[in-house]
């Protein structure tokens, strides 16, 4: 059993149910080895409602060079933060749009399944991101190998 402040602050524990599971962080090997089986796949909340998974998706979004085309100035279908989805906005829809991305490449050939889950969660979260904040995050991640700067595994 984990020693928690809850022992002295029992009433507050109630809040836990309502509020903050979105902060949970599981490191290490985890769940999905397969694509979502529809928009209501029970595994979805563990990604979509989790800040850490969404943030990881954001890093891969840079690593795989998505941000090169899908930046703030992208227009039409390539604009991912306008809340309009050509290929559907459900989790499985967006997942499929990335996995079988058009224009090519189809990312399912190169990106591991779990990272596709994280990318999907991030892309679906994008409409809620403030552009300022997104720019600030990008600045911090400037040093990471991304898109064309990627020089292979280190």
């Amino acid at each position, binding site marked *: 059993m*984990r*020693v*928690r*402040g*809850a022992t*002295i*602050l029992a009433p*507050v*524990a109630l*809040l*836990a149910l309502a*509020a*903050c*599971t*979105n*902060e*949970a*962080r*599981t*490191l*290490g090997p985890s769940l999905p080895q397969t694509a979502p089986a529809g928009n209501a796949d029970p595994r979805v909340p563990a990604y979509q409602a989790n*800040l*850490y998974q*969404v*943030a990881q998706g*954001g*890093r891969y979004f840079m690593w795989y060079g998505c941000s090169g085309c899908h930046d703030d100035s992208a227009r039409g279908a390539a604009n991912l933060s306008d809340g309009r989805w050509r290929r559907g906005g459900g989790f499985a829809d967006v997942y499929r749009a990335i996995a079988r991305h058009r224009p090519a490449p189809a990312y399912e050939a190169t990106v591991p399944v779990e990272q596709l889950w994280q990318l999907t969660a991030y892309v679906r979260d994008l409409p809620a991101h*403030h552009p*300022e*904040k997104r*720019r*600030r*995050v*990008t*600045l*911090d*991640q*400037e*040093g990471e190998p991304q898109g064309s700067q990627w020089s292979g595994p280190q």
Partner: protein
Amino acid sequence: MKPDPSLLEQLDRTWRDPPGLWGFLTTVDHKRIAARYIVTALLLMFLAGMLALDMRWQLSVPENTRMTPQLFNESFSLHGSTMLFLVSVPLMEAMAFWLVPLMLGARNMAFPRLGAFSFWLYFGGVLTLWVAHAIDITPDLGWFEYPPLSGPAYSPGHRADIWAQMITFTEVAALAASVNVAATILKMRPPGMTLARMPVFLWAMLIASIMTMFSMPAVMLVTSMLIADRLVSTQFFSVAAGGDAVLFQHLFWFFGHPEVYIIFVPATGFVSSIVETFSRRVLYGHSVLVLAILSIGALAFGLWVHHMFAVGLPRLGNDFYTAASMAIAVPAGLQIFCWLATIGTGRTWFPTPMLWILGFVATFVIGGLSGVMTASAALDLQLTDTYFIVAHLHYVLIGGAIFPLFGAFCYWYPKATGRLMSERWGKVAFVLIVGGFNLGFFPMHLLGLEGMPRRVYTYPAHMGWDMLNQIATAGSAIAVTGGLVFAANALCSYWRGKPSGADPWGGSTLEWATASPPPAYNIPFTPRVDSLTPMWNGGAPLPALDGIAIDTREVLVSSVTDAQPLYRQKSAGPSIWPLVAALAVSAMFIASIFTPWAIPIGALPIGAALTGWFWPNRPRAKIGALEAAP
């Protein structure tokens, strides 16, 4: 001097708190406020100690699966942050709160309501960190959270914000407390207690308070910058935008290093008091001790870079900070020799408080030596972020501050409760804690030298670290058991201990002149002082100064160097406003984690609370300065 009972009754009517809950919420009695601080901090020490034991359990065997990496990260972050920000520093402040007025023969602190405010705000910081823990938003980046790791890109969510805001809470509380302590010591000394006749304890508290005032703003600034980076996307620590991530480390450690001396310097005050009383002689080298503390206070601000040798500063820079770090061993050594000389030349006896002093000297010297080792930039490159550092920091923090604190607890316990703690159980606890601690933490030096990193949740089996880790865990468990014995002893003695009388140890300073526990008004009369050890005057009654009102709360204000009485000053009575103000400030701090609007909007209730606090409570003067009566 035997005060007559009607005087005492009048004083009691003037100074006691209203009864019941209202009294609890409004009190400005420095003893009650300090007791709250102490009880809260000891409870947290227990919780953080349990976390530590849990970590040691995880590390006792290789590839243990009791904790996930994330839980381990949270555990050491919560343990370290709690122990430093919510336990050590507040405990030292609380001891000052409790003892300074008593040792000055004063009726209260200089700013009674600020004292209450300080506690409530500290309590807000405690709740921020531990309620967040209860709902699983525990900070997980250690007790110093460097960007970019703690920045917006790599720490989504609010874990880092909780840590940063907990710091804001505790630092505002600490600043309020320090200002109060310094003003009290400088302006409320009894007639005759010139600076030259001020006990070392008061010097230590004064210097620690001044250090707090100079160092805490740096960390408040830097955590506020971090919050701004995270909340409103400023670029203080964003290298790509021309910000500077190393700036965070500089500002943090500009506070962080003095912080360890803010914990250690008050401890030297405890040691000085205890050594003097039990050696039955005036401290050997009083002025040397005071000057040593002063120079530690000054030098402590010039060493922070030794926490950053691995960052890659220029060679000459590293050399300079190596030299400065080693220099601090000189005043620290002088202090140790003064205490040893006092013990050696006095008519010394060794009840539990003195045993803690011996435990302190032995342990702190080891911690000091490993400190001199890590102060060498070249060696530090090898040792940094290994278990050697974990050993070093616990030797100086536990040996240098917690052991003297336990000694001080035993020494002043009879004054606070009117009862003596059991000597036998006191000794059992001492042996368990000091023995267990050394057994548990000494092997960590070797683990570090063998390359075991700190902040890892497990290690593979073939590294040759198994045996030492098991010893470390066993020792920690013994020490924690000793801590429980200590606590049980304190609790039982509260009801069952032998009555102690006013002065069980034959103490040298003024707090022993009043009853145990001290009444609400502290002491029936204002003493006059003519030596460093006013209570050692051959049993004669203390000379007293008369003329301070007894039917209203009034204190004596005296001059800074000579303690000449200057004037009588009204002292603030119980009030709900400090609590209201602390609630308003807490609401603003917490809300500003979520939205920048909290700052302008939250300022309004704070303004309202402060207006209530400072509302004039005497009628407007009828005659202005210009028309002063002839």
